[in-house]
């Protein structure tokens, strides 16, 4: 049963809109959020086949401006921020000084002319800690603004591009995966990024709270769009092999352990100079002690977060960090951390949950192929 909201649970700009559409509201990341409308499996499959509309306004939207922002950010993130061109988005990680992950995030270069500006989207449950960490660790010349007057919608799925074309003519065609732009709509500015958390083509739309409902309505007016709750968001990202902060990633996890080496840009591997670089570069060279892997489970019963991962002798070699039933594959899948020697696809594992053993196998991720819209594709 959904818990009653406590005094500290906040509501988002689209709260009544969700309720009017049958959204089942649950507390998440400090907000009342819709976990489902029609049902998680139906919403999941709809997104894989059509277009799903997600309210992700709980996430933190930040704007960083000032001379030398990119250089300052590079001390905290392992990505090549200096080489990120205006209008380009990069997935990155906010690191602590030991190389552990404080949060994972998306950063877009929104600079105009010589005015440096970077727009960042961070996780809802971690945003206040992120802001504190950034403020404490960035020089005073960098201005950090928390865009609390902005809502964030995501339109995801193979038909998202066609749907958005009707609302924002010409915009989808100008954007491939990991590109963003600003566009005026009904008198306000929208930030549009071609990215998401489902493995599908799609867009994230930053909109002033005042116009969030109007934009949601304009998108939902298209029959190809259905509202999608957090439940399907989780099963979609799991199938796409994408980690969830607080579950698959935490401050004890490094980017190399988390198999997010792609987020450590080439130049940064050579030059270092980011928080925890010494440890992270050593792990890149020698291999991590533990590594995040995907796995499939035999049978139908999901093995969920907290399940133990055992080797052939019954020794615990890791823990399940995400697990559930894949609506697309109709079987249980998951991810977790195992010793480096057990991380190759095809490796047989035994999982233990509530005293019951399960046969599992390390699987390549994504479980369901990504269908991002790439330039020239």
């Amino acid at each position, binding site marked *: *049963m959904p818990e009653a909201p406590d005094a500290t649970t906040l509501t988002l700009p689209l709260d009544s809109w969700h309720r009017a559409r049958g959204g089942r509201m649950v507390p998440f990341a400090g907000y009342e959020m819709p*976990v489902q409308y029609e*049902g*998680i499996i139906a919403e999941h499959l709809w997104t894989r086949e059509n277009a799903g509309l997600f309210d992700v306004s709980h996430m933190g939207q930040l704007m960083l401006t000032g001379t030398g922002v990119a250089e300052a950010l590079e001390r905290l993130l392992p990505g090549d921020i200096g080489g990120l061109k205006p209008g380009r988005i990069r997935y990155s990680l906010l690191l602590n000084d030991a190389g552990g992950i404080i949060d994972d995030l998306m950063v877009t270069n929104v600079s105009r002319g010589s005015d440096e500006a970077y727009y960042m989207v961070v996780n809802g449950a971690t945003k206040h800690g992120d802001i504190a960490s950034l403020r404490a660790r960035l020089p005073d010349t960098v201005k950090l603004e928390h865009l609390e007057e902005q809502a964030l919608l995501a339109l995801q799925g193979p038909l998202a591009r066609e749907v958005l074309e009707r609302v924002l003519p010409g915009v989808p065609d100008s954007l491939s995966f990991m590109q963003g732009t600003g566009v005026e709509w009904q008198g306000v500015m929208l930030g549009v990024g071609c990215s998401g958390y489902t493995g599908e083509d799609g867009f994230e739309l930053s909109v002033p709270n005042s116009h969030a409902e109007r934009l949601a309505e304009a998108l939902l007016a298209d029959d190809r769009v259905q509202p999608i709750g957090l*439940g399907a968001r989780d099963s979609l990202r799991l199938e796409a092999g994408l980690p969830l902060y607080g579950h698959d990633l935490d401050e004890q996890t490094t980017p190399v352990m988390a198999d997010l080496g792609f987020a450590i840009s080439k130049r940064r591997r050579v030059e270092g100079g980011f928080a925890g670089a010494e440890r992270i570069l050593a792990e890149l060279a020698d291999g991590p002690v533990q590594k995040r892997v995907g796995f499939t489970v035999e049978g*139908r*019963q*999901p093995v*969920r977060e907290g399940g133990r991962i055992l080797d052939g002798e019954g020794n615990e070699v890791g823990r399940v960090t995400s697990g559930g*039933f894949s609506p697309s594959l109709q079987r249980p899948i998951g991810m977790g951390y195992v010793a480096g020697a057990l991380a190759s696809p095809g490796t047989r594992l035994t999982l233990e949950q509530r005293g019951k053993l399960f046969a599992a196998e390390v699987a390549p991720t994504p479980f369901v192929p990504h269908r991002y819209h790439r330039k020239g594709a």
Partner: protein
Amino acid sequence: MSLYFTKEHEWIRVEGDTATVGISQHAQNALGDIVFAEAPQPGRRLRKGEEAAVVESVKAASDVYSPVSGEVIEGNQAIADEPALINTDPEGEGWFFKVRLEDQGELDGLMDEDSYREWSSKL
């Protein structure tokens, strides 16, 4: 035939000394899409309140408790083969198990259908 409900959202249909147990319409709706169910094996002796079966939705795993004591006569293979039956017909085809009632007195204090519907509608 008598139908009873528990505060844990199980229903018990009693015919003679045979009790059929399942989860209520309210429970399946709260759980959402069910992807796995496991009923107890025939011959297992259940005590009242004991974990008897497992039901898992996309989001979470839940236990089904036996509302009465007795020996399991039959587990419903249909829900193992097609867990979604519990969503579509929770108080019919989606039953979990049948048990031979040891103590009719254990039914005292359970809710009848009207009381349960009234009580669960306010949750």
